[in-house]
């Protein structure tokens, strides 16, 4: 089954896909920005400050999603001894890290008008900061070690340790008394957010997901060319 995912076979698709993904990303982003900044209503309590939600929430969701995917892929790579899983994980990490930083910074900017402070050592914010540290460690390991086997082992270990933090981030607002508000969107029950705000939020999430796909494809292609460069040296 894994033969279908061999780099030689999928490069033809991944090398052409970025230009279409970039076009789609720009279109969805423009629609999302118009919805988020102009068309969506202001909040009765937070007024226009609520618009920060349209960049903060999708960034946090996607950074959590990417870290979970990286962990799953790293474990698969280890179990099935398939290098391609590690290559995909490595290519996903930079966009996950940037989304994590965006979530932290925009959350801090949102905190000033709503809580009166840029930063608080609150459970949700601190656990998101810890996730950023795990992302940083994961990326550093790929940079400092040359021995692939060692990188695979250490990076998988980091992701397994880091994944423990993901449910802590999710449930921190329920388990502890925090400044951060509880989740407004629930998959299993009715969301407490109005559809006029929900649609722009989903459009911005789609735009952010397309951006992470774009970066992933570009990074994955770069990694494949790096491997081919080493192959030419051996000829």
């Amino acid at each position: 089954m894994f033969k279908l995912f061999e780099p030689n076979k999928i490069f033809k698709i991944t090398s052409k896909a970025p230009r279409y993904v970039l076009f789609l990303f720009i279109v969805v982003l423009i629609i999302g920005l118009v919805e988020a900044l102009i068309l969506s209503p202001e909040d009765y309590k937070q007024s226009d400050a609520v618009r920060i939600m349209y960049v903060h929430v999708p960034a946090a969701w996607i950074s959590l999603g990417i870290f979970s995917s990286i962990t799953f892929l790293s474990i698969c790579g280890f179990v099935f001894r398939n290098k391609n899983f590690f290559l995909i994980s490595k290519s996903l990490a930079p966009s996950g890290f940037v989304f994590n930083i965006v979530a932290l910074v925009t959350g801090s900017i949102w905190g000033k008008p709503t809580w009166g402070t840029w930063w608080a050592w609150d459970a949700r914010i601190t656990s998101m900061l810890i996730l950023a540290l795990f992302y940083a460690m994961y990326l550093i390991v790929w940079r400092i070690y040359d021995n692939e086997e060692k990188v695979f082992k250490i990076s998988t270990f980091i992701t397994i340790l880091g994944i423990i933090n993901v449910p802590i981030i999710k449930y921190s607002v329920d388990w502890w008394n925090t400044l951060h508000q509880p989740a407004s969107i629930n998959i299993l029950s009715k969301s407490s957010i109005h559809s006029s705000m929900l649609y722009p939020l989903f459009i911005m999430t789609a735009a952010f997901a397309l951006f992470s796909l774009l970066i992933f494809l570009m990074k994955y292609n770069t990694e494949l060319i790096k491997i081919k460069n080493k192959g030419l040296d051996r000829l």
Partner: protein
Amino acid sequence: MINELFLMNGYAVYVLSAFSFTLLSFLGLYLITKMQFVKEQNKFVAKFGTLTTEQAKSAKSQRINKEILANATIN
């Protein structure tokens, strides 16, 4: 209307700085990733140019190498 849009009830500085930071981060990451890609692609093309006819023929037998060369920005 325009004033309302830009002032955002006094929250414009927070809202616009959050959106600007996000978009600038995206732009930065895109440019860095693009630069790394082009650098590796150029390196590949340069290395390919130094191969002997026999080596080039062997390297070209792999579809992925042909794809990289076809998509390269320099020749």
